[in-house]
């Protein structure tokens, strides 16, 4: 049953953690689409030897571009549900089941993960990160009209039909806000579901910094100017 669930994992320079991040997905029987976004390390050699769909961008384009490549590929290979999942080991595989529930019941078209819905998830978010994310919530709300409890949570799930309607043009990290804009534009029904973020030194280093946040907002504003 899980075979028709395609988990798209964008990967950039993750040779050290990628195997252990992908393993639990395989154990659950999900179809995994790993997109190596032009990594300079051994990521590609590792993922191509695993029993998964593996694709490689010849040059580094950004997470949004890798997600779009994976989504297009998954749709072509008969995905019923598409899940976005980060490669740095910060997401818990068990959460995918939670995300899929509203989709399977037909209650939503897109499900967005949030680390602020359960107290146990909320409490592990480092203070500085929390501030940044809440700032992101406000910026997203103002720019996209979609008000959530979390920003830039890489864990999402959607039905085949909604995946067809979503087209990420934002190559870098502004794609997370772009998805919200397209959810609104296509009138897709969305809900937030609780997800756990596992904070390790590695996932914190890979996460968003203040500087990145500024660049994201800049990207979004420019996108508004240039159509």
């Amino acid at each position, binding site marked *: 049953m899980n075979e028709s669930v395609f988990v798209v994992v964008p990967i950039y320079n993750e040779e050290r953690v990628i195997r252990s991040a992908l393993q639990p997905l395989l154990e659950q029987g999900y179809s995994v689409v790993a997109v190596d976004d032009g990594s300079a390390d051994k990521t590609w050699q590792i993922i191509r030897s695993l029993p998964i*769909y593996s694709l490689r961008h010849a040059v580094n384009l950004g997470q949004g571009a890798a997600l779009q490549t994976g989504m297009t590929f998954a749709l072509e290979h008969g995905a019923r549900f598409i899940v976005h999942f980060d490669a740095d080991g910060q997401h818990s595989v068990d959460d995918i089941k939670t995300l899929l529930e509203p989709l399977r019941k037909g209650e939503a078209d897109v499900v967005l993960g949030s680390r602020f819905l359960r107290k146990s998830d909320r409490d592990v978010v480092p203070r500085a990160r929390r501030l940044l994310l809440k700032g992101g919530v406000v910026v997203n709300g103002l720019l996209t009209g979609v008000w959530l409890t979390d920003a830039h949570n890489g864990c999402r799930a959607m039905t085949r039909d909604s995946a067809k309607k979503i087209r990420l043009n934002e*190559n870098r990290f502004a794609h997370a806000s772009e998805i919200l804009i397209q959810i609104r534009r296509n009138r897709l029904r969305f809900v937030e579901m609780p997800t756990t973020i596992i904070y390790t030194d590695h996932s914190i280093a890979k996460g968003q910094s203040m500087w990145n946040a500024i660049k994201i907002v800049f990207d979004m504003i420019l996108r508004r100017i240039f159509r």
Partner: protein
Amino acid sequence: MRPVQFILIVLLLLLTYVYFSRLRSGLLDRVIVLVFAAIGIVMTVIPDFTTTVANFIGVGRGVDLFFYLAILGLAFMCLLLYSKIRDLEASITDLTRTVATKGARSPDKKDDEHTD
């Protein structure tokens, strides 16, 4: 003619020459460049002319007027270049995506076909 006028005119002509010899462009682009070069030469030869125009719209000196216009022009150029870069990025993305999809590996295929 003052030396500075001579230098400016030579540089302007050089710029125009480089444009026409190195860049392939449409007829409209060529006309625009020629018009701008002509305006530039007129402004260099008769500086008082720009001052007259400047005074007419409430700017003290012709040089100042030129300065304001130049800044606006440069900002406009930056935006144009930026949107070109975005277009380029979009084509590179399409290209990369196509190549990635063509070279995709399936779960059932073992890593034995070719090594690259």
